[in-house]
């Protein structure tokens, strides 16, 4: 379908960019109310523009929209226009980004109101919305890459927002650098596709993919002569997937995301849970004509397995964390694994559907945890929480709904999206389904534990507060030292987004009911509309497939709900009275202790990277800088040649006064003499 021109698309990134620029340049002098107005205006404007674009898109019978803004890089053989595009997939992501983004802006007004860096915070947040919308709207790989790195910058700035704490600043740096490693792969992937197809434009690439005749016929011309198109595309997919691993925190590049929790909690909700980290999934689905089991099966296997393993691996770490945000962070890594599992199996719309529902319930969970941390003046250790159910009812109920959604309890949003993934996995690959199924149990377990420790049992924050707080807390709120702490209850700014996101987490499943719900006579005599979202995305990812037998699907759903409820309850039951003394005793010795230590220390992956990569490279760098340069090169070339000259040139030593001025004089005089003589 030829895209319609709709130039107003540029408003979506432009409005938050204006907000960010205004706040950066004059924010320091603006009163707080005006800062709020500019920041919320920027993000709400982007949301409104996204809704308008979606409406236009819908009215045009889902014809893709495009806005060709200017010729960006155009040299030699290649032209990369600055083109924005809008189709069903874009609309799904951009509505989440700007919608959830706006809600989190609202929440932040309450959360950050006492922070001295108020305007700076909103400048970064608006900049993030700008970069993320470029990522979502960019119609070619290079333009997408602008957003891709732009969100990395926003993430860097926001993780290190409280930069006076070196650990937080270092976490930001780590995020940027690990993402850069991913971007290296992304760049190589771009080069490969551009080298093969002569363009980075998604529209043209799709056309080219459709025109591929024989994937296994060896190419005879071009830079890839001697390889088959399948091999080249597989290489490109794997390279791009390295980028996705960086941005979306998959094994082996996930290590930055847990550290990223150093940022303010609303940032964790927006960037490190709901939107930015899903960019990798979005990219894979965007390029589904290459990332396809029929085109690049090897790459797809890799993606599905990396996703599945990440899902279970991260969930296992989440079990043993005591920092509430860390648990949620590993949960995010794990859920992103599910999305890649789906994408790797070719269930693109299931991946995107899980992206959307996850954005709702995970944002709600993070904002809820932020409200808890805020209430406790910066406490993040769950062992010093407990009993918050009564004083913070709004937080508790929204948190509970989102927890159930995340654990996959029917009929909440997460149930439907996770079930769609597991159903596909069951159909295609039982080992992968097994990973997903076990991961779902772990998810329910750590969330039950989190719920029990935080909201149930007795209040433990009064007694121990201010004592050995191991983890960095949100610095702006400081540490209270009083025995009785005054709970800082969330204001209206904070409660509204919680309620809205909680509601979305509850009902978003309706967007995409499984086909087995297509029952006559349920909703007032009509059949329920099923798979609406699958159909909506079909223009991008192809028609939805019905694979499983209805009976098996019902069975799978039933089993997974029971499975989730069981582990959820188990977690809750063990931890509802606080850290379990029985478990503590059990993990004090023997293999259980080792298991606990390994999980608590995150399988020692950071340490392994430190000793295997960082330290050797830095040692090599020191060797270059402190030995090769001064001794080998200078010693050999400079001093050596000087020595040679000296020994051979003794006879001319009267010339060698060592006085540069006299050299210069001789030189100038000589040149002048030559010129004079010549003229």
């Amino acid at each position, binding site marked *: 379908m030829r895209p319609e021109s709709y130039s107003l698309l540029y408003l979506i990134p432009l409005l938050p960019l204006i907000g960010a620029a205004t706040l950066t340049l004059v924010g320091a002098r603006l009163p707080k109310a005006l800062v709020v107005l500019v920041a919320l205006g920027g993000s709400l404007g982007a949301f409104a523009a996204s809704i308008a674009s979606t409406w236009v898109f819908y009215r045009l019978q889902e014809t893709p929209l495009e806005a060709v803004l200017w010729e960006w890089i155009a040299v030699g053989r290649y032209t990369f226009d600055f083109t924005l595009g809008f189709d069903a997939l874009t609309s799904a992501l951009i509505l989440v980004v700007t919608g959830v983004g706006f809600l989190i802006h609202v929440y932040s007004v309450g959360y950050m109101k006492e922070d001295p860096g108020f305007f700076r915070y909103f400048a970064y947040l608006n900049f993030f919305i700008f970069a993320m919308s470029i990522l979502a709207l960019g119609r070619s790989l*290079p333009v997408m890459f602008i957003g891709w790195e732009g969100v990395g910058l926003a993430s860097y700035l926001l993780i290190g927002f409280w930069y006076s704490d070196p650990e937080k600043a270092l976490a930001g740096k780590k995020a940027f650098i690990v993402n850069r490693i991913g971007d290296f792969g992304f760049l190589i992937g771009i080069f490969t596709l551009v080298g093969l197809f002569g*363009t980075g434009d998604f*529209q043209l690439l799709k056309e080219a993919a459709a*025109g591929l005749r024989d994937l296994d016929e060896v190419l005879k011309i071009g830079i890839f002569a001697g390889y088959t198109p399948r091999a080249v595309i597989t290489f490109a997919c794997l390279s791009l997937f390295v980028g996705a691993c960086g941005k979306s925190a998959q094994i082996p590049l996930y290590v930055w995301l847990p550290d990223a929790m150093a940022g303010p909690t609303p940032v964790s909700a927006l960037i490190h849970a709901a939107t930015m980290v899903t960019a990798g999934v979005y990219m894979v689905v965007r390029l589904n004509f290459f990332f396809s089991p029929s085109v690049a099966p090897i790459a797809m296997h890799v993606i599905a397995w990396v996703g599945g393993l990440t899902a279970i691996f991260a969930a296992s770490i989440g079990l043993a964390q005591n920092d509430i945000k860390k648990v949620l962070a590993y949960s995010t890594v794990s859920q992103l694994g599910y999305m890649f599992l789906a994408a790797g199996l070719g269930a693109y719309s299931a991946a995107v559907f899980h992206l959307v529902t996850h954005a709702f319930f995970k944002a709600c969970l993070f904002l809820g945890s932020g409200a808890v941390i805020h209430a406790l003046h910066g406490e993040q250790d769950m062992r010093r929480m407990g009993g918050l159910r009564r004083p913070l009812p709004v937080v508790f109920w929204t948190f509970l709904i989102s927890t159930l959604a995340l654990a996959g309890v029917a009929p909440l949003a997460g149930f439907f999206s996770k079930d769609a993934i597991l159903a596909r996995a069951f159909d295609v690959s039982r080992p992968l389904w097994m990973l997903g199924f076990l991961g779902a149990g772990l998810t329910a377990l750590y969330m039950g534990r989190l719920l029990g420790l935080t909201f149930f049992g007795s209040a433990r924050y009064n007694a121990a507060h201010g004592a050995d707080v191991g983890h960095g807390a949100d610095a702006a709120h400081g540490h209270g030292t009083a025995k009785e702490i005054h709970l800082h209850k969330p204001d209206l700014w904070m409660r509204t987004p919680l309620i809205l996101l909680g509601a979305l987490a509850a009902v978003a499943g309706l967007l995409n009911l499984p086909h087995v719900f297509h029952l006559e006579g349920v909703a007032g005599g009509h059949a329920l509309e099923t798979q609406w979202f699958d159909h909506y995305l079909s223009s991008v990812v192809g028609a939805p497939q019905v694979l499983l037998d209805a009976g098996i699907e019902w069975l799978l759903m039933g089993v997974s709900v029971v499975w989730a409820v069981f582990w959820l309850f188990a977690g809750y039951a063990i931890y509802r009275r606080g850290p379990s003394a029985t478990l503590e005793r059990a993990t004090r010795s023997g293999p259980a202790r080792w298991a606990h230590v390994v999980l608590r220390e995150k399988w020692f992956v950071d340490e392994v990277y430190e000793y295997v990569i960082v330290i050797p490279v830095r040692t090599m760098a020191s060797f270059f800088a402190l030995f090769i*340069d001064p001794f080998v090169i200078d010693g050999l070339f400079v001093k050596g040649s000087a020595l040679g000259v000296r020994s051979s040139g003794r006879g001319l030593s009267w010339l060698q006064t060592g006085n540069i001025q006299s050299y210069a004089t001789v*030189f100038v005089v000589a040149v002048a003499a030559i010129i004079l003589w010549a003229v």
Partner: protein
Amino acid sequence: MTGASQLLAAVVFLPLVGAFLLMLFPADDHRNLKATAFGLSALNFVLSAGLWMSFEPRVPGYQFETNLAWIEQFGIRFHLGIDGISLLLVLLTTFLVPITLLGAWTAIEARVKEFTIAILALETGMLGAFVSLDLFLFYVFWEAMLVPMYFLIGIWGGQRRIYAAIKFFIFTMAGSLLMLVAILYVASQPDGGWDFSLYAALARSFEPTVEPYLFWAFAVAFAIKVPLFPVHTWLPDAHVEAPTAGSVILAGVLLKLGVYGFIRFAFPMFPTAAFAALPLITVLSLISIVYGALAAWVQPDMKKLVAYSSISHLGFCMLGLAAMSVEAVTGSVFIMLAHGVSTGALFLLVGVLYERRHTRVLADYGGIAKRAPIFAFFLVFMVMASAGLPALSGFPGEFLVLLGTFTSKRPMMMAAACIAATGVILAAVYLLWMVHRILFGPLQNPENQHIKDMNLREIAVLAPLAVLAIVLGVAPGLVTDRVEPAVEAWVQQLHERADGIPAYQPDHGALAPVSLTRSVGPRLRRAPVQPVRPAQNDAQRRLDRLFRRGDAQGVPGGPGQAPVARPGVEAQGARPVDRSALRRPILIPGAPAPAPAPRSPAGGEVN
């Protein structure tokens, strides 16, 4: 001689005239000295903006040519001219000099008169070297540049300034002498006469046994200037000891002369030897990229860190040349500009700190962002520009070099691009390390407690650079539209003139979709670049095509006969440019007088 070509000469010599003017000033009138020097250099920037305005974009070949007799006996001519490549480098120079002078307003307190004179003289030297089309003239400017730079380091430098200055002088002098010998060889004609014109040198073909020596004599001189591993060690020392102004000009402009020398002289004069040397140049560039980046990471001194980062960035430039594709070479030229902007700015920022705290050791800082938020903003911004964040100045060049290298048909270039791309990771590593050490963490050092944020003058110095960083990143076409035609002709001619090298024939991609040529922007509507088929094996004639000049040798077919090597442009209805208006016949001394050029009515008289 038209007004336009006088403009170029005016741009080159205005600073020198200004330097003489400043000699009349009393030495203690600091304010007027600085203001006059700044005003003159700003005026020169405005003049050079006139060059930009009247420069015909999308046209290869030289414009604003001036070709006057100078030293007839030796075939030395005063011959200036610019193409898209030198135009941009001239603008970079005239842009950076006033910024440097403004940046050094309070940093230089001793010998202000000498300082301003040195900077202005240096500007003429650099500009002259960028626009000379005569080997002797080029050599004069090239050497003339050395002297003020030597004094800049030696007089206004730091503790070990004499050591650094001498090291700088000896390294570059060693290269220059080699080059001088080669120039003399090239200029001596077989008939015993002399001809220093670049055109004459390009028209000659050298014996296969001699050509590599000549190439390397030039190449070593330029490689030292770039600097390419392993002749790079003078640069960190020079930077560390140089005053801020010296560092900005050194990194911003002087290093570019090395790359420029390769583009203008070493490669075109000795194409066969150049092609033979490409694998070695590729390897050295890759080493420079990775080695420079790693060495930057562990420097305790921030100036040294930025200096090593220059080595890494300039490695990208050289890699682009070695890739020999239009994209990569255009990217190289782009990096030269982008590096001038971002690294110039980084040196200025280091200077801002140094003026306040008189130390450049990273460990003495930390937590500065708290006290100096404006400084923090500029530092992070420029670091991002330098690290190649897309839509800032560092990205288009790196992207083009890497893409052009990856898709180059030369062997092993795909692997080379992958190795070079690790430089992108490492750039983030060392630059963010620096940012972290300077800006973040607690403000522990008591001496930093009262550090002042940037003042209005310093903001005025850095703001133009920041704006330029955005403009270059968002609209790189401003640059590439002017550079690309020259680069395209350059690449094609090199392929044609080198022995045993097939014509430049890049492909669009083996599986490019059919609609590619009609659905994307106007540029791609033209047909894929066709090889320029040499009609006959006649180097002279192909050169005529390169420079589109009247035919001095009387080759059949006449001047301007060969069409411009951009097939498809005319065919597809794009605006045909009347190039005849822009060229003039060039006199090659010693050759018969050119026949009147029928197709160049504007050609006018020959000087």
